[in-house]
C-alpha cells in the first residue's frame, strides 16, 4: 500500500491511523472507488484521516469539493448507482443536515424502490464534535435519525482495534452506510489488543467485558467511559457486562438480549440525546425481548434534552462520564459504592487529552 500510515508495532497505532489505512486499502482494492469531501486533500486532511489519499490515487479519484453538501451527496449517490464505489466525509455531522433529502429520499430507498435493479455502494463518514466550544451546531449526534430510516445502515465505531475493519467493510458494503466517528476517538491508541484484519466479518454487537450483575449497552465514546466504570466496579465486587452496539440495527442485537437474560439489569449509555433515541430503542427492544428476565427498570444515561452550550463552564455537566455510570449501576444494584474514579485532573473536561489545543 502506498503512502499509508504504517505504525511500527500495530499496538502503537491510533484510531486516526487506522481510518487512514482502511481508506488506502479500499482505494487500492477497488479501482472504481471515489472519495470526496470538504478539505479531504487539504494540509490538515480531516484530522489526518485522509492523509496521502489524493497523492496516492490522484485527484480524479480523491478530491475536495464546493460547499454544496446537498448536491454533492446526490452526486455521490448518482456515481454509486452508475458503478463507482463512493466514500464521502464531513468534518461535522451538523453540516450534513443539508443533505437529508438526498440521503433519505434517494440513497436509502433506491435499491428498494427500483425493485433491486440498482444499488448504492456509498459510505458517508460523519464526525461528531464535542467540547472546546463546539457548541449547539458543531456537536450534534443524530444517530437515531439514520437508524430510523429503512435502507440505511449505521455503523458507530469506538475502538481502535476494530475501526479499520469496520470502515473497510462499510465501504465494501453495497448499501448506503452512515459511519459515525466521534472526534475524541481520533488519537485513541490501540493498546494491548491487536488490530483486526481488514476483512474480518462485521460484528454488529461486541461484548467487551463479561459480567453477571448488569448489562451496560454503549456506543461511540461512551464505550470508553463504560470500560473505565467497569474496571472500577470490578474492584468493588460488581461485575458488569459491557456490550457495544456497533450497528444500529435492532434485528442484529441478539447478544444484547442474551446478556440481559443473564444479568436482569440494563443500563444504556447513549452518546446522544436520550429522548426518542437509540437508547429508547435499546430499552424497548430489550423490554419486549427479555421482559421476564428484567429484575429492575432499565435506565438510560444520555445527553440532557438541550443543545451543547459553548462555554467551558456550561459544558461541565453536559456529558455523562464513568462516574455517572458507576453511580447508576450502584443505584440499580441497590448498593453504595465508596469513593469515585479519580479523573485525570490534569486534563480539562472539555478536551479528550492534552494533545488537543483547539480550535476545532
Amino acid at each position, binding site marked *: 500500500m502506498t503512502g499509508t500510515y504504517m505504525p511500527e508495532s500495530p499496538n502503537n497505532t491510533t484510531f486516526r491511523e487506522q481510518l487512514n489505512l482502511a481508506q488506502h486499502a479500499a482505494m487500492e482494492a477497488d479501482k472504481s472507488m471515489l472519495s470526496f469531501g470538504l478539505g479531504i486533500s487539504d494540509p490538515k486532511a480531516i484530522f489526518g484521516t485522509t492523509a496521502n489519499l489524493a497523492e496516492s490515487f490522484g485527484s480524479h479519484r480523491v478530491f475536495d469539493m464546493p460547499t454544496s453538501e446537498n448536491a454533492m451527496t446526490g*452526486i455521490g*449517490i*448518482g*456515481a454509486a448507482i452508475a458503478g463507482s464505489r463512493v466514500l464521502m466525509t464531513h468534518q461535522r455531522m451538523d453540516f450534513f443536515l443539508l443533505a437529508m433529502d*438526498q440521503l433519505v429520499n434517494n440513497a436509502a430507498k433506491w*435499491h*428498494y424502490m427500483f425493485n*433491486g435493479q*440498482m*444499488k448504492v455502494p456509498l459510505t458517508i463518514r460523519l464526525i461528531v464534535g464535542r467540547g472546546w466550544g463546539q457548541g449547539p451546531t458543531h456537536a450534534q449526534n443524530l444517530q437515531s435519525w439514520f437508524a430510523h430510516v429503512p435502507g440505511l445502515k449505521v455503523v458507530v465505531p469506538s475502538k481502535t482495534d476494530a475501526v479499520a475493519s469496520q470502515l473497510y467493510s462499510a465501504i465494501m458494503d453495497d448499501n448506503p452506510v452512515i459511519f459515525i466517528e466521534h472526534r475524541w476517538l481520533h488519537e485513541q491508541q490501540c493498546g494491548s489488543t491487536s488490530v483486526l484484519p481488514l476483512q474480518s466479518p462485521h460484528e454488529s454487537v461486541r461484548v467487551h467485558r463479561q459480567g453477571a450483575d448488569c448489562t451496560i449497552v454503549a456506543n461511540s465514546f461512551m464505550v470508553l467511559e463504560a470500560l473505565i466504570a467497569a474496571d472500577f466496579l470490578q474492584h468493588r465486587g460488581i461485575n458488569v457486562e459491557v456490550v457495544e452496539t456497533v450497528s444500529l440495527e435492532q434485528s442484529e442485537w441478539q447478544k444484547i438480549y442474551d446478556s440481559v437474560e443473564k444479568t436482569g439489569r440494563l443500563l444504556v449509555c447513549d452518546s446522544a440525546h436520550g429522548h426518542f433515541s437509540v437508547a429508547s430503542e435499546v430499552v424497548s427492544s430489550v423490554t419486549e425481548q427479555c421482559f421476564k428476565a428484567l429484575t429492575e427498570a432499565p435506565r438510560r444515561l444520555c445527553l440532557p434534552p438541550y443543545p451543547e452550550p459553548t462555554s467551558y463552564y456550561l459544558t461541565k455537566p453536559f456529558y455523562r462520564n464513568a462516574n455517572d455510570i458507576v453511580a447508576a449501576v450502584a443505584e440499580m444494584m441497590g448498593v453504595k459504592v465508596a469513593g469515585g474514579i479519580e479523573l485525570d485532573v490534569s486534563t480539562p473536561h472539555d478536551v479528550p487529552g492534552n494533545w488537543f489545543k483547539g480550535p476545532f
Partner: protein
Amino acid sequence: MNKLLAYYHDVLRIRLIEEAIATRYSDQQMRCPTHLSIGQEAAAVGVSRSLRVTDNVYSSHRAHAHYLAKGGSLKALIAELYGKQDGCTGGRGGSMHLTDLDAGFIASTAIVGNSIPLAVGNALHQQVQRLDHITVTYFGDGATEEGSFYEAANFAALKQLPVLFVCENNRFSVYSPMTVRQPSGRSIVELSRAIGLRAEEVDGNDVEAVHKASETLVDKVRKGEGPALLECHTYRHREHCGPNFDDQLGYRAPEEVEQWMQRDPVTQLHNKLVSAGVDESRLVLLKQQIEDEIYEAFAFAKASSTPNPDYNDRYLYA
C-alpha cells in the same frame, strides 16, 4: 420527409399513449399520482434523437415522455401504472419512479430537483471511467428554483462533466405561474451561463429545432467541452397531476392556453407532413400501428400478475 415522419411517429406515439392513460385513469386501476407529458412531447423526442442507447437519462415526476423517447419499454410502463409484477419496478415505484436500464433510462424521481445531482454523479462516473457516454437530466422550470439544481450545475461546470441539462419550461409549477416564483426578467439560459454552463433556448414544441439544438450541444458535451443546458419552451395541456383538463379553474389565461394549443407539436408536425404532400392514409396507418401497440400494452398490463406483498421486505438491502 422521412425525418419528419419519424418525428411524427415518435411524438404521436407518446401523445397517444398518454391519452390512452388519461382515458383509462378514471377506471381507478392506475392508482398512483400520474403526471402526463401531453403537449411537451417534442422536447423529449428532439433530445432523445441526439442520444445513443449507451447514453443515460434521469428525469423528474413528469417522466413518461422521456422514458418512452429514450426507448423505455411501453409494456413495463403501463404494467407499472397498474401496479403489476411486470411493471418496470414491479409496482414499487409507480409513475414517478420509472427505470429501464437496457434503454439507458436510469431513473425518474418524485422530489422536485433531486434527480439532477444524481445525473451529475452519473456523468462524474462516466468522466472518471473515461466512457464515451453522456448523461441527460430533464427537469421543469420549477426545479430551477431548488438549490440542488444550482449546486449540481456548479459542480458539473467545475469538473466539465459530460451532462446535458434539459429544462422543460412549461411556465407552471402545479398551478403556480412564474410570477410567484421567479423574479421578472429571469432568463434560465442566462442564469445557467453565469453558473458556467453552455446554454441555449429553443421552441420546445418544434421537434426539429429541439433536435438540432440538442445535437449541437450533445456533440460538445460528448467531446469533453463541458456541460450544457437546453431550455425548451413548452406548455402542458392538462392538469398538473391526473388525467383531466383543468382550465375551468381559471389559473391560466384562456388566450395563453389557446395560443399554446395552436402550437401543439402533434398538430404542427401533422400539418407539415400534409403540406409536404404526405398521403393522409399513410398517417392513418401509422396511427393505427401505434394504437395496436398501445392496445397490446394495456392488455399485457392487465394480464400481468399482481405482485406478491409477501415479498415486500425484499431488496431493502443489496
